[in-house]
């Protein structure tokens, strides 16, 4: 009993510290978005706005472009991450559970593809989407973004699939299940938490991507959320209110996506899946 109490205290104390570190800057963003410029530019910061001003949010809602940006980002991020997850699941299954020639080389090559930084690849990739004729549109981004999600997703999924003991799969095969059905009926459901986590991070990788979006998309109707936010950073005196408010608003869809997927991140269904 004493042991559990001590443990409880440690757990909650650690949690509190983690929360403080994670949330303080966000708290700062939120209160900044409500402050007046005069209050933002003061010698000593105030921890609570003297007066809550909603002007920043009025501006965001009335500026049509911002909602379009969110819609574009949502579309690109969803399509790209669903596509990436599906193909990565198949590839990761093959790499982690099957034996074949060239396995090690192929799996390594997938990660090698990840090593070139965006700052180097954006020009050739832009040339590629231009050649296809989908530059200056979100379709161009849909073509490019899997380069940042697939290598990541494949590798994370490999590690989740590998943590499922082979004996479970073998038991099912002895029961007469085919390869494909063990994959879809056992490995995938058992790895649901990992798949869900990989999905949500693929989604956020696309959501916050900036450089490719900047280069590929110029026209207003196809701009993504990061471009919309950076449009607020003009000159050397920033509009802090809308900028901070905008990023708060921009994170809401991600949080909804997270809540949507988070129920698959809970264990318990693992046990049911085997039977």
């Amino acid at each position, binding site marked *: 009993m004493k042991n559990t109490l001590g443990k409880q205290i440690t757990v909650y104390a650690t949690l509190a510290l983690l929360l403080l570190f994670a949330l303080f800057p966000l708290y700062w963003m939120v209160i900044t978005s409500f402050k007046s*410029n005069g209050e933002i530019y003061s010698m000593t910061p105030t921890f609570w706005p003297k007066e809550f001003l909603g002007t920043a949010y009025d501006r965001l809602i009335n500026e049509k472009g911002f909602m379009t940006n969110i819609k574009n980002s949502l*579309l690109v991020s969803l399509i790209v991450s669903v596509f990436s997850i*599906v193909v990565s699941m198949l590839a990761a299954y093959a790499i982690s559970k099957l034996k074949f020639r060239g396995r090690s080389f192929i799996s390594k090559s997938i990660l090698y593809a990840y090593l070139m930084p965006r700052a180097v690849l*954006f020009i050739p990739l832009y040339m590629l989407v231009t050649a296809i004729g989908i530059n200056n549109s979100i379709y161009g981004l849909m073509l490019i973004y899997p380069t940042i999600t697939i290598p990541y997703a494949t590798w994370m999924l490999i590690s989740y699939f590998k943590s499922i003991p082979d004996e479970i799969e073998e038991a099912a095969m002895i029961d007469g299940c085919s390869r494909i059905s063990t994959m879809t009926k056992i490995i995938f459901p058992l790895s649901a938490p990992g798949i869900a986590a990989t999905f949500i991070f693929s989604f956020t990788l696309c959501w916050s991507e900036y450089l490719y979006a*900047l280069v590929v998309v*110029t026209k207003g109707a196809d701009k993504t959320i990061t471009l919309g936010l950076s449009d607020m*950073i003009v000159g*050397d*005196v920033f509009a802090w209110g809308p900028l901070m408010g905008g990023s708060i608003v921009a994170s809401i869809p991600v949080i909804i996506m997270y809540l949507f997927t988070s129920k698959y991140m809970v264990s318990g269904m693992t046990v049911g899946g085997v039977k």
Partner: protein
Amino acid sequence: MKKSTIRWITAVLALILTAGCGAGGTGGSGSGNADPGKETLTFWMKKQMFEEQNQMIQERAQQFGEEHNVNVNVEFIAYEDFYPKWSAAIESGTTPDVSFFGYQEVGQFYAKDVLEDVTDLVGKVEKANGEIQDSLKASVTFEDKLYGVPLWTESTALYYRKDMLQAAGFSEPPATWEEFREMAKALTDPSKGIYGAGLGYGKGNSDAEWLTRAIIWSHGGSLDTEDGKIVVVNTPETLQAVQLIRDIFIEDKVTPPSSIGWDDSGNNKSYLSGQSAMIFNVGSLAATIKNDNPELYENTGIAMLPAGPKGAVVPGISNNLGIFKASKNKDLAKSFIEYMTDKSWYGTWVENGAPLTGPIYKELAAEAVWQEEKNKGFVDSIAHFAFLGYPGVYNPKAGEIYNLRYVNDVFQKMLLDSGFTAQQAVEELQAKIEALYAK
């Protein structure tokens, strides 16, 4: 489990498909406005701080399109973002027809041979609207040809808090750099967190690059050449200026503690919050406080930069429109630029950005708006403009030296390491710049 997974995936897919259709639809109708039979002109414009100015450009471009029966695509791009966009566009052959260029970039791209000669066009524009300031034309002239049409200027001025100066017993802003140093000392009070000289040296800081040049040039020094060949950085004049800056930071300690890390917004933050009594900035700050903080605006004085032993020299910033050689509609592009520089419209546009955006036409500088107390300093500066490469003419190498931030690098080193003397700093600058000119 399995069923729910499938249901989940189908739900997402369905959502995407319908959303996809929606987007496809709007995208289609968006491009549907663009009549495929018409020619299209693409124009990349620097996004201005003032929304009114952006809107005016958009409307004007639309009007041009209607009058000439063409489509005009205007894209507003933040200055920082231009470099990756130009690079990708040039390499893939998708350059816009007309683009904004700072004069440094006009030089850089002239050297890469991707810009159209617009000498005739400038002549035409001047004939129709009156003379353009000579210093602006000079900054985009290479081998007697012009590669950009000036669109507006920006200049750096001194901002000071009238009340703080008064409290310290000064009725006038500093006229010389020595006076500036003395006043900064009197204005500084670290116990209250107040500093006289809001000078910053963050690595990317462009204000610092310009201001350092202003101080060096007004002392008769240089960061380049006189003839485009022999680098003349290591001179007693440059040293004197560098020593002055070093003393302000290290001997007098009249600069805020974090100023070595400031980016371009650092000095503005410092001024707005009352930490610095004097700073140097372009007109953006004046325009912002006029709207956001009328009280501070009232209390703000703006003057031309202090003078050195060789008089006042102000680093000029000229912003231009240029035409890419790869453009398929050069004639159209030229008439578009003529249209955008037409004085009757242009005068209103440039005034909307005052005092950040200054006019190119000599005649417009005499307008009432520029004679206002707080705007005068900016247009008066134009006559004292000097450009990168000074005392020689501007050349692409000088632009590279600016872009590489050699000045900020060396000054950061000097201001962080008290053993690093002004003489050493000047020698290092001489060596680095020589190496670049030698390439």
